[in-house]
């Protein structure tokens, strides 16, 4: 790419003129909660801006041959060509950053999409499902009045880099997904996988992850009602930190993300935006900052659960007062994802003044602001006449809220609107939002059964020596219960608050967590998350089914009726045909299993590239099942309690 000084003043001049044609740089609603930034937006454009200004659309038109660092951003040649085709020109720096994020595996599901369809296709019909796959989280109705929403997500890689913050922000992220559906988050769970228990790096990762899950969840006031701690050397360089959140909402409070209604105001609420997690797109600035950029661009995000707690309370108050039209959380892809998804969902356009985004570091450039993964932020779409009430609510809870843009109409010809982003008067983004969200690449990647699978399967459990004497049996049992995977987990679970909110009916060490949802009727839900990477390694199809069956059983034995499934699919690189085969088989198994049990997958998450060099983790589908209890007083705890009055109780073994 060129250095910024290549940018000629001539093209820039044309750009500066653009705001005159109806795109007033001053907000129509003078509402920024941050006066200095609002002031910056209307300050005169100085000569400095012309030299150091951002890459604009006008420049992109004028310099079609400029080399751009798309391979460093993870885009392939054909993907880059597609972008040029869509835009009819080269993308600006900001646009390139946005496409690279939205078309990444993480956001576009480009390798998994073709397989995940089965969840919808094979799902049994359900009249409980108010929102399903594709939404921030699935929503299931559990009574005339109430619905619950739940989802499990991964934060694996960040938790390896910085265990505490990685795990903490993993919890924070899934909680915002649940919040975005209109629900009050009411519980969390944390399926975890680590390398060997006695490996020195496990001593770094495990305590940090557990403290991070606890630190964030405890501080938000969400009871932790279950999870998993599994050790296996295959996770040594790729620990799995999955986090599940459960939320409850009145059916009529269901929110959606569509930025409907031209003229409505786009509000950014929550933390200021900093250079968190923009490691990926930092190459865009490296030509000018070289060494400095290394220092300035941490890929680590730091969580602030206190701000998230305030954000939760503020959002719930906004929902109850019916003050928002649409809402979306800011997750991994930051503003880029929130702006494009909300606009694409409504078919509208959007006009955004990027300089109004409150920044933690004033020197941030447009592409950095768009890519930032700063935590604890939500994007709201608000009718202009309700804006003041929204800002008042935010102020009451002490969170920042700033109008940064407005919804614009679809094109006159009926085509969806465009997303137009300016920064101090320069047009830095002008794209069809749907092209980022829905038109990303989709791959049917090559798949091949791993060559070593036959060998692995040949080594059968039946051929292992078995304890034959009572002493040997005793020794085996003692070894098993002392093994890290089966031992008491209270060192972990004691670091989690399971009492807060006062509705935890069952939690650790029970098979399923049970939460009372309605204090008057006793209505409640049970949840379990389970996975077994070793089964899935031997047979991904049946391994996924077994994970589902285990979770389903755990919920059923608590006394609940299982009704919905979420899942987090943790795999190696999809570019490895063996991994891709494992993935396809696991998805097929889970979809078939759900069809057989008659419950739908309502949402989930795919985490690929859990791999060090050529060595992938065991395929690890983690499955969460949710069940309903009409009266939580009827729950069945795990312990055998002596019935009153009886001398002895009988123990039965059910099944084959």
């Amino acid at each position, binding site marked *: 790419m060129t250095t910024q000084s290549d940018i000629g003043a001539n093209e820039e001049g044309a750009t500066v003129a653009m705001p005159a044609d109806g795109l007033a740089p001053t907000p129509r609603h003078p509402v920024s909660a941050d006066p200095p930034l609002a002031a910056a937006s209307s300050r005169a454009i100085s000569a400095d801006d012309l030299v150091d200004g951002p890459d604009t659309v006008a420049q992109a038109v004028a310099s079609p041959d400029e080399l751009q660092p798309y391979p460093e951003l993870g885009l392939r040649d054909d993907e880059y060509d597609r972008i040029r085709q869509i835009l009819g020109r080269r993308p600006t720096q900001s646009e390139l950053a946005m496409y690279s994020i939205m078309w990444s595996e993480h956001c576009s599901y480009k390798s998994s999409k073709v397989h995940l369809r089965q969840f919808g296709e094979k799902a049994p019909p359900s009249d409980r499902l108010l929102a399903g796959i594709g939404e921030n989280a699935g929503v299931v109705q559990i009574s005339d009045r109430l619905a619950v929403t739940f989802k499990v997500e991964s934060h694996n890689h960040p938790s390896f880099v910085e265990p505490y913050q990685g795990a903490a922000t993993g919890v924070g992220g899934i909680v915002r997904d649940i919040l975005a559906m209109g629900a009050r988050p009411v519980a969390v769970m944390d399926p975890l996988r680590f390398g060997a228990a006695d490996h020195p790096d496990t001593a770094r990762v495990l305590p940090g992850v557990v403290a991070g899950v*606890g630190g964030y969840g405890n501080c938000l006031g969400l009871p932790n009602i279950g999870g998993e701690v599994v050790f296996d050397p295959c996770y040594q360089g790729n620990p799995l930190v999955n986090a599940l959140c459960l939320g409850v909402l009145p059916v009529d409070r269901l929110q959606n993300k569509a930025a409907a209604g031209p003229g409505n105001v786009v509000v950014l609420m929550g933390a200021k935006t900093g250079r968190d997690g923009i490691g990926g797109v930092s190459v865009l600035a490296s030509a000018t900052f070289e060494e400095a950029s290394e220092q300035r661009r941490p890929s680590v995000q730091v969580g602030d659960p206190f701000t998230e707690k305030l954000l939760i309370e503020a959002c719930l108050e906004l929902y109850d007062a019916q003050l928002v039209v649409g809402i979306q959380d800011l997750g991994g892809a930051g503003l880029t994802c929130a702006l494009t998804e909300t606009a694409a969902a409504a078919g509208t356009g959007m006009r955004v003044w990027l300089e109004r985004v409150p920044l933690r570091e004033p020197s941030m450039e447009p592409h950095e602001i768009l890519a930032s993964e700063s935590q604890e932020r939500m994007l709201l779409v608000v009718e202009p006449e309700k804006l003041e009430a929204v800002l008042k609510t935010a102020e009451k809870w002490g969170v920042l809220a700033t109008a940064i843009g407005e919804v614009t109409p679809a094109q006159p010809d009926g085509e969806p609107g465009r997303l137009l982003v300016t920064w101090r008067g320069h047009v830095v983004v002008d794209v069809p939002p749907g092209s980022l969200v829905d038109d990303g690449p989709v791959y049917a990647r090559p798949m091949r059964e791993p060559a070593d699978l036959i060998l692995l399967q040949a080594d059968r459990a039946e051929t292992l020596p078995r304890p034959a004497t009572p002493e040997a049996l005793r020794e085996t049992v003692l070894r098993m219960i002392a093994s890290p995977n089966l031992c008491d987990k209270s060192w972990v679970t004691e*670091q989690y608050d399971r009492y807060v909110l006062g*509705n935890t009916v069952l939690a650790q060490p029970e098979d399923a967590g049970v939460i009372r949802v309605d204090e008057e009727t006793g209505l409640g839900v049970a949840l379990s998350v389970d996975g077994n990477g070793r089964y899935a390694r031997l047979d991904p199809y049946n391994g996924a089914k077994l994970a589902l069956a285990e979770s389903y059983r755990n919920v059923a034995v608590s006394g609940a009726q299982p009704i919905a499934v979420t899942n987090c699919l943790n795999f190696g690189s999809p570019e490895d045909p063996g991994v891709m085969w494992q993935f396809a088989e696991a998805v097929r198994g889970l979809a078939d299993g759900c069809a057989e049990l008659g419950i739908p997958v309502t949402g989930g998450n795919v985490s690929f590239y859990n791999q060090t060099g050529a060595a992938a983790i065991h395929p690890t589908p983690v499955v969460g099942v949710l069940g309903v209890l009409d009266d939580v007083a009827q729950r069945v705890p795990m312990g055998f309690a002596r019935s009153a009055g009886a001398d002895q109780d009988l123990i039965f073994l059910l099944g084959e």
Partner: protein
Amino acid sequence: MTARIGVVTFPGSLDDGDAARAVRIAGAEAVRLWHGDADLHGVDAVVLPGGFSYGDYLRCGAIARFAPVMGTIVTAARGGLPVLGICNGFQILCESHLLPGALTRNEHLHFRNRDQLLRIESAGTAWTNVYQAGQEVLIPVKNGEGRYVADQRTLDELEATGRVVARYVDGNPNGSQRDIAAITNEAGNVVGIMPHPEHAVEALTGPSLDGLGFFTSILKHLAGAPA
């Protein structure tokens, strides 16, 4: 007339709903108080609930102490208003100097949540009068900074004047000096307790019903108190 018990919500309060529920289960009316409102709305007693007020980022309770509502509560408590501080509320009471000493990082450096056996040492306070001195109760404890510390003189004085309200038995979960779990002021109207009695008021959700006594005690106290 039913007693009206105020429950304060600070930004970051988490167990405020639970405290209000416990108040209702005990048979009183729970009145929600807001940190930014200095008015106590005529309540007969106040509960400062658990949580992470203001994120507890500096020191637990350090920032909450400056909330407008605390100004009023400190004055009223000195005048005899019964105040119960639970966990974060206990920390706030110490930071506000209504109670002596301080709550510091757990000795083992971890947040710890477990069902904890306590011995009620003093049944003479506004919040413990339905218990018997020496009675053992099972109540959840959950904190990261619950280790009570004070200088030797203060500790000796607390012991000598019967102001240690409850002690951990069967294991000290955080390294508290002299196993102290709860203390009171000289007048016995202000009590700070680290464990969470509000989490032990329903058979379905708690390990016992042993926590309810704190909330029924205040009703008994108010009923006996001269108007």
